[in-house]
């Protein structure tokens, strides 16, 4: 089941990160994990500030990466879902 588009994902507060030339490095002490994100993933990560909804993020991505809104929405949903399962983001209505 895909996530509702009005949810606002927020980076988990225990996760540290920095973006190097568009590529994010995430360090999660709780998950004992280091992960790098590609340019698109990094942009989504930056936008997961608890203020932008999934729909907002998809709209921004659609503009910045010149892809259809539907495609952006599908990518953002899947990415947020994956990060939520790994407890790297929290979801709020």
């Amino acid at each position: 089941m895909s996530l509702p588009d009005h949810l606002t994902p927020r980076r988990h507060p225990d996760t540290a990160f920095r973006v190097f030339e568009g590529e994010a490095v995430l360090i999660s002490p709780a998950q004992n994990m280091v992960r790098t994100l590609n340019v698109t993933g990094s942009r989504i990560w930056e936008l997961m500030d608890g203020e932008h909804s999934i729909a907002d993020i998809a709209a921004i991505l659609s503009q910045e990466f010149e892809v259809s809104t539907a495609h952006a929405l599908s990518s953002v949903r899947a990415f947020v879902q994956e990060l939520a399962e790994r407890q790297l983001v929290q979801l709020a209505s």
Partner: protein
Amino acid sequence: MDPYQSLLDRLKRQHTPYAVTWELTHRCNLACFMCYNVPRAQPELSTEEALDVLEQLARAGVLRLTFTGGEVLARRDFLTIARRARELDFAIDIKTNATLITPELADELAALHPVEVEVSLLGATPETVQGVMGGHRTLNRILGGVRLLLNRGVRVTLNSLMMRINLHEREAMMALARELGVPHRMVFKISPDDDGNDKSRGQQLPFEDMVTLYGEMCEPFQPRPGHPRARTCSVGLHACLIDPYGVVFPCIELRIPAGSLRQQPFETIWREAPIFRELRERHTLAHMPACRTCPLQTYCEGRCSGAAWKERGDLYAPHTLACRQAQARYHSLHPAEPIPSPAFFLEPAP
């Protein structure tokens, strides 16, 4: 290649500061006899100065931040600084002796979500720990602090500097770590003081014990030929040290000042300090003729320019401990063969 390693390699090539070790204070509630800190008669960075440094480090791209001392928890504003570091999305590590940790402080430390808290364990009996670190009921207090952290889900690693005085308790220290369910790291390098005074040299492990330890502990070792462009470590490329007075150094061992944060911005020091430029341009085997031609070069892993600087006054020279360790590694792998002498000034190995 692992994408994270690939990114780290890129950051090194680009000289992007990624990791900073920050000695927040040289004050300490204990008195380890081999402590290398040399406190200076000047004020340590104030809270305001430290918070400003954090902002500068975040802007420069630093992600990994290790707080150490002295004893970081002896600094009353430690939590203020560490909380701000987390707000700025640093991944923080904390090095502590753990003896000052109360239940309330453990709650606060857990709320910081450190990647790791590294606790020094310098013996397994009260007598040995007391002999090394001083204090009162020190071992009990260390273990009490560790348990408080573990109960709150903080990842703890025990770190043991192996010396003549505590080597006989090595197994017992490992057992303590197992009992606590935490990783145990052993280190064999006793550093001279920051000013080069090698007061604890007599505590370095004897050669025969190094051989035994390499034989027992080390992962399978493959001798590796050193290319002239190879670096013996990545000093100056993507990490540095800040001392309590705001002076930036290439690393915890190499105490050649790069600049003071009280006088220059971090990014200026990082990009322009002569010592960083020197290390980036020249810190390769090509500039270490004695090491490059040494018959033990492929067995040498512990060469440290900071140690060479303190011992020989030469960044590119060999130094005794690394040569001894290379000999010990060779002997542990080839016990029946004569031990080559490094192209250096050592007396023959026993």
